[in-house]
């Protein structure tokens, strides 16, 4: 029996930053859709112009969740922004609750 080949993934860690083209590739969306998400406040990249935009792993996750909310539940962008903020608040509260129990 041959040796098992273990897959090496990419860790989306706090240091990781990606460009507009990279976030489009990661999330399978067009640049136009990313522009719309920035305009609606779903994500807030660093940098002034789209060419300078830098996205963190938090933005990658928000874009991926937004795509799922839009495709699966037909939620509009302001709704997605609200859902994402509530999910993050819930995760923070769960984390704090776990620390104190």
């Amino acid at each position: 029996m041959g040796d098992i080949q273990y897959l090496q993934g990419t860790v989306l860690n706090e240091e990781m930053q990606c460009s507009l083209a990279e976030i489009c590739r990661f999330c399978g969306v067009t640049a136009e859709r990313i522009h719309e998400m920035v305009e609606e406040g779903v994500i807030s990249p660093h940098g002034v112009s789209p060419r300078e935009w830098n996205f963190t792993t938090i933005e990658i996750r928000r874009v991926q969740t937004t795509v799922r909310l839009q495709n699966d539940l037909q939620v509009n962008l302001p709704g997605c922004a609200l859902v994402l903020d509530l999910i993050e608040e819930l995760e923070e509260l769960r984390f704090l609750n776990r620390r104190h129990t």
Partner: protein
Amino acid sequence: MKGEDQHAKVILHLRDAFHGAKQTMTLSRPVVDNQGHVITTPHTLHVAIPKGIIEGQRIRLEGQGLPGTGGSTAGDLYLEIAFQEDNLFHAEKRDIHMTLPITPWEAALGASVTVPTLAGNVTLKIAQGSQGGKKLRLKGKGLSTERQKGDQIVTLRVVVPEAVTDEQKKLYATMAEIMPANPRQKLGV
């Protein structure tokens, strides 16, 4: 059309996050059978978890998501890291926290005590006159990568031994006489 991304949660022991680990996992994957019905089939993956991964981080495995259609590429698989509850330690980002019980004489006189860490036992020096709640930092004993370092934060908890025998009770009474103290002074009582 490119395959959909798949998302899964991986529950790790803190030790595996500290040292890195190799995991074998089985995911359910929807496929269309010969009759055109969607059924789920198990899909086994062997994944290397890198050292120093922290809770909430995700690992992206390119091309390991759902298969594409019409010759297109497969989606990606995202593994989100969560930690199992541990009796001794809990992680906050890269730092590992633990509470260390010590005796009143270790706190008052100072001592060198053995402390468990995810890297194994180490000796920690407790300064003379330490109080419960004091935090001591063990550098580099948290969830570290080559570029990001985590520490272990040890919080002291002074455990007062129960006085059972007459001799032990007398010893406490002697302490009260020789070392009068009012820990409630700041309460104004």
